């Protein structure tokens, strides 16, 4: 994974990872350290990392026609109390937010797991957007947060 130079190092994180699931924990650690520097609360960091994993794992698992090496770019920008996240890839065109909602009220024997990851993203993140730009997928997430109070930082474990 590469971490790119940003216009303003203090307010933007840019990382380029390859289409390997094994790189997701490394990305999560990088995102956690970056957001912690802005006093983003642990539960919000959890939600951001969950959204990143669900979207990126979807792309890695279903978006490519071969086992080749492809780059996925993740940019996180801080503006006031809003976190803006952009995920860009050159996988097959796919709007992750277009599919029908999952039935979370179904009984255990009727529950499948398909679509659950995207359901979590839509429920946890304030605003989500997809655009196909040229031969690339652009997924944008926007999420507001209240800064962690000093008391909150030691409470909950978020590995």
């Amino acid at each position, binding site marked *: 994974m590469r971490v790119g130079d940003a216009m303003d190092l203090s307010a933007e994180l840019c990382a380029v990872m390859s289409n390997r699931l094994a790189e*997701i924990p490394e990305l999560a650690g990088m995102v956690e350290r970056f957001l912690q520097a802005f006093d983003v609360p*642990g539960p919000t960091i959890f*939600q951001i990392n969950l959204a990143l*994993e669900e979207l990126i794992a979807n792309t*890695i698992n279903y978006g490519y026609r071969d086992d080749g090496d492809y780059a996925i770019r993740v940019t996180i920008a801080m503006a006031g109390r809003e976190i803006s996240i952009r995920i860009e890839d050159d996988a097959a065109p796919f709007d992750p937010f277009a599919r029908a909602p999952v039935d979370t009220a179904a009984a*255990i024997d009727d529950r499948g*797991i398909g679509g*659950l990851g995207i359901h979590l993203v839509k429920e946890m993140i304030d605003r989500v957007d997809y655009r196909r730009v040229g031969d690339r997928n652009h997924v944008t997430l926007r999420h507001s947060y209240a800064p962690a109070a000093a008391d909150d930082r030691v409470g909950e474990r978020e*590995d």
Partner: protein
Amino acid sequence: MSDAQTPALLHPSGRLDANNSAQFEKDMLEVLDRSPHGMVMDFSELGYVSSAGLRVVLLAAKKVKAAGGTFVLCGLSPSVSEVFKISGFLSILTVVPDRGAALARFS
């Protein structure tokens, strides 16, 4: 507690994600093979779970139920619990606070 009633126990730590859920599924199927009639998943050391982990939990609960056994989940942190809640899993799974309360379901 007799051996027949002793549930399989899984106690993952750290992250349960798309990268390691296949290994967790393998571990789950192994312990279930030895003790098919009940299972406790203790998530007290788990800081993070994604839908890849939920998939294995759902699979385990279905398999135990099909064998006529009891599946109990315990030790969810607030963030992990939120993932289960949003997924609708809190209403279809037996979730208790800690391992003691989980094991009490088998006594």
